[in-house]
């Protein structure tokens, strides 16, 4: 059976990595062997989960739940080793200055290697990735666009040959809703909502993808007007100010939810969890996710 592949994206600071981790925990608890992938040179999840290290090979966090840190380089290395198989030849390959320059200059090659690895299961090509569920934390909207655009971009430069063929096959899988799902994490605030609307429309127009929106840190406990009116009589000044601000916030949150629901009517909301304990926050969020 093909693995499920989830891409989690959104504007910086909306809690993407936390939501991706909560989704991973939810999947792992339901018995799916889950891999949470982060992309880049340095790991966020290492400190987040207090692990001693996180690298290209999966590190186990809990039963059924592992994390890995992929870079374009590490994915490319693995792929090429898989293709040429002979270790000495592979060393020769990577210690060669021409090869290093090639990796650095070839546009979108790191992104292509990452997307190639993510989709290796359904394409039945490349090193095996033995997981039922792969969740990829794509760290910023701009970088996510680079990841999504890499296969098409490469296929444009290289029309013939194996590279062009692989690029087109990756692109096909990414557009297949039976295999890949996309989440845009958003906050109930003006700028993140605007960026979410734009990204939603772009994904739809460029790839025919319908992403799902997750509204994070949403005020889920709606209070009645009477509560705010009663608070005005309280002698504590700070509480009166809190009441005033919270009333505004509640209104704004509802307005923002209406806006994103205009794009995705199935938008999920996650509450703000007032805790500094990572696992506690994740458990609450995982329980809320559909």
């Amino acid at each position, binding site marked *: 059976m093909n693995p499920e592949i989830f891409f989690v994206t959104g504007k910086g600071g909306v809690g993407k990595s936390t939501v991706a981790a909560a989704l991973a925990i939810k999947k792992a608890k339901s018995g799916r062997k889950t891999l949470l992938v982060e992309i880049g040179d340095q790991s966020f999840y290492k400190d987040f989960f207090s692990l001693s290290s996180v690298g290209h090979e999966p590190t186990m966090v809990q039963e059924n739940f592992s994390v890995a840190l992929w870079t374009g380089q590490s994915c490319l290395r693995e792929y090429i080793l898989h293709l040429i198989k002979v270790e000495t030849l592979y060393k020769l390959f990577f210690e060669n200055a021409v090869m290093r320059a090639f990796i650095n200059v070839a546009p979108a090659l790191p992104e292509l290697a990452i997307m190639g690895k993510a989709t290796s299961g359904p394409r039945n090509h490349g090193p095996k990735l033995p997981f039922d569920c792969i969740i990829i934390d794509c760290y910023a909207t701009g970088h996510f666009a680079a990841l999504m655009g890499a296969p098409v*971009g490469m296929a444009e430069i290289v029309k013939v040959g194996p590279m062009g063929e692989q690029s087109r096959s990756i692109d096909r899988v990414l557009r297949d809703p039976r295999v890949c799902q996309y989440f845009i994490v958003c906050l109930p605030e003006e700028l993140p909502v605007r960026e979410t609307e734009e990204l939603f429309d772009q994904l739809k127009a460029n790839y025919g993808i319908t992403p799902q929106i997750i509204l994070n840190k949403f005020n889920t406990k709606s209070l009645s007007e009477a509560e705010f009116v*009663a*608070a005005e009589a309280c002698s504590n000044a700070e509480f009166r100010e809190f009441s005033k601000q919270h009333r505004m916030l509640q209104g704004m949150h509802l307005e923002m939810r209406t806006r994103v629901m205009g794009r995705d009517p199935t938008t999920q909301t996650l509450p703000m969890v007032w805790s500094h304990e990572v696992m506690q926050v994740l458990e609450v969020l995982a329980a809320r996710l559909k």
Partner: protein
Amino acid sequence: MKILVCVGNGGVGKTTLAAAMGVLAAKQGAKVLVLTIDPAKRLATTLGIEGSKDICKVPGQSYKGELYASIVDHKKTFDDFVLRAAAKSEAAKKLFNNKLYQKLSTSLSGSQDFTALEKLYSAYESGEFDLIVLDTPPAKHAIDFLNAPQKLSSLFNDKVARWFRESKSNSTRGRLMNIFNAGTKQVMNILENITGSELLRQLADFFMSIEQWQEKLEERITRVHRMLVDPETKFCLITSFDQAKLVEAEYFFTELRKGGYHINSIIMNRSHPEWLNLHEALPAEAPVGSKNLFALYKEEKEFYACRERIHATFAKKHEAQTKVIRLPDINRPISDLLGLEVMAEIIRAQGDGQ
């Protein structure tokens, strides 16, 4: 001439704070330039300078000093650099048509950082401003910004370009194969099998076209580095407030100091809501009729009290070397110069400016 470089990961409000710090300095009498990346294209609207590519004076100001702003246009900055660096304009033209270059100039990791620094250096060289505030491109980690120029330069440092240049054969592939040693030939054969020959041809063309500006790029990077480690150049780390981000801030702090850069402050943006008063005690019991609201209030208040303890530990650890400033969440979008002035006033009150 002073420079303030604002670094930090995406979404922390770096662009807005960079602009607000520019406003603050202009209010205090300086001639300031805010150089911004403005990935979401919203600061240009806030400042009322949409559509202008060059440095322009921000309209609607009445400060003791002057506020100028410029949005960095990556493609144009990169192309301008190549034009200046290339000895012959045909060489530059050829490069502009190369598919690899077209992608490289805008999407290669590090190229945006390079163009931001390139723009900063030109403004610095002009000597026209008392202060330049630079807002850096979003990165997963703040430290990526500093490593970018070296990364870009190492690309052209490799002996590779020379190999391409020194070959004499007429066909690209022939040239490639003549100059490579046996090992490299083997590598090229594998690469050709994996990628096809078209990509290799583009690559060879690319390296042959950049031969002239290789030296200029390296020279530029050396000068930019000298400007960045100058004691007059200060770095300001802008971060959000949570455990993982604090660990990252610490890492960044250590790396900056190792690299010989000068850190001016760590700003924790939106660290607490505006209504929070740390000295105000919690009322003993819920006011009549607002029990649910009071429960929320209590929960948040306890959360921020805990955060306050974490912050105190962090600030104490670094107070000897830098200012650690917290800015409240003002809970409304900043959409014009007036909004930036409000923010500037908050920065002044919390951390007496730069």
